[in-house]
């Protein structure tokens, strides 16, 4: 059975290395993007099975990216886990998500490894 793929979007290079190593160790393929625009390019190339998404990013914020994905017919069912260190940003996100369904998961940085892996497995039915 081919491995499921996870798109990791975060503007912190070390976070990308961390999450990709962690998820690969747990049997997933990973694709990384350091901003929302690159994230869109990657998703166009190949639709992932799940996305982890940071909120505070330059150029295209996580909120905007989230709304773009949820507004697209092809991508709107991809599970998305928000991973962020800024609770205010998340509150803004929650209040701005009119007519947009909530994320499939929300994890606060610094992440608890078991929490992240547990949520990923649950959303992917593993």
């Amino acid at each position: 059975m081919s491995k499921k793929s996870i798109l990791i979007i975060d503007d912190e290079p070390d976070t990308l290395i961390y999450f990709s190593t962690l998820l690969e160790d747990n049997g997933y393929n990973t694709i990384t993007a350091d901003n929302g625009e690159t994230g869109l390019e990657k998703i166009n190339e190949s639709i992932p099975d799940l996305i982890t998404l940071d909120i505070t990013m330059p150029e295209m914020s996580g909120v905007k990216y989230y709304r773009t994905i949820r507004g697209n017919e092809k991508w709107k069912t991809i599970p998305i886990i928000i991973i962020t260190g800024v609770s205010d940003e998340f509150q803004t996100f929650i209040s701005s998500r009119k007519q947009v369904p909530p994320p499939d998961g929300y994890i606060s940085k610094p992440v608890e490894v078991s929490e992240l892996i547990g949520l990923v497995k649950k959303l992917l039915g593993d």
Partner: protein
Amino acid sequence: MSFASIEAMDYESLKIPDALLFEEVPCYISLQDRSHSIIKANRRFKETFGDRLGEPCYKVYKLRDEKCEVCPMDSVFINGQIHESEEIVFSQEGFPINVIVNVAPVRDDSGNIVAIMEMATDITETKRLQKKLEESSEKYRTLYDEVPCYISVQDRNFRLVDVNKQFKDEFGGSPGEFCYKVYKKRDERCEVCPVAQVFEDGEFHSSEEIVTSKDGKPINMLVYTAPILDYNGNIVSVMEMSTNITNLMNTKTQMTLLGQLVSGLAHTIKGIVTGLEGGMYVVESGFRNSSDATVKKGWDMVQRNVERISHMVLDMLYFAKDRLPEKEEVRLDKFCHEIINLYEKKFKDNNIVTKLDIEELKPYLGDRKSLYTLILTLVENAIHACTWDKERQAHGIGIHLSEMDSSIKLEISDDGVGIAPDVKNKLFTTMYSSKGSGGSGFGLMIVKKIVDEHEGEISVESEQGHGAKFVVRLRR
């Protein structure tokens, strides 16, 4: 004397004995001859000054051995007119008594002035109350003028009726001028006027206003207005009492910025902790999978984030410390060249072309370490802005240093990602950095602090996607 009834009394024919009047009228009456000797006195006079007929008046109630220098009696003997004056006399116990003295001539049948009648009314209590009133007024005036707030009284036409000293010193303004002209610098009434509200409902009101001093300085005020009533309870004017809360507002802003700073710090620290935890995980993963490359990758992450937190702590300490610049003569042009050399490899590795326009300047008196840090930080930021920008493969950074009229201008520009408008407004007051850049987020705040310590100015021009230009001006 008796009367059948009040109605039956014939007031016209009523004869009141002169003796009764003379003795019982509530004032001091005496008659003096030309030698100032008292020849007759009424009961009240005798009770207060003693029965001292034949003695000179100045001895009896002025306690003097000789005539008063300005004697009202002499004037009457000369011109025959009634005189009035205010005097202080002394009772037989020596107590001073304030009196209003009326002196009139007493004539014989031939019309010659044979004596002087002196009638003195005791106004001691009146004087005492008058003095008390004056002291009270003075106290009130002092309080009114010296109280540390601005007080004005306006009439129904919004003209100033009275202002205290504080008000006058700060705003100018005189009674009769329109209040809105004096401290709002308006030609017409304010749309929402706290004074008008009081005239309408007779209640106390409070509000926050921004007014303008006579020097054109805006001042934040907390304003209280209250009605002033007449004896019938009608509102005749409104008192406006204002307190300067500009400093309080600034403190509020500072606290808000501090809150934002702390929030920014927390966010950055979370990122660093994630990096450290991530590094440790990757190292462990490398050991588990026997991959040296993975172990090295993880260890590099740990080192990077330790360095980040170390920089951040040093920057925080630098920022938090109040320090006076240690001034010495420094060559800003040499600093620019040194920093360019320092980053030569980084420019090359990131395809950044530098455009230099650096004048040779005379030494500038400033803090060596701070000024070096200032230039270094701005150049570093320019490099990051270029490396973030994925739109272009090649970028340019400009460094300009010049002087005109003792004003030094340092400009550092780039054609990188630029700065969003909402970020630009708080660039020097909140943490701002690209994550993973190794920056602490304090860079520009420190730059601003250094500029302020040298009494300079810093500004930024930028449009998102079109680079940025930082301009620092320093005066000699």
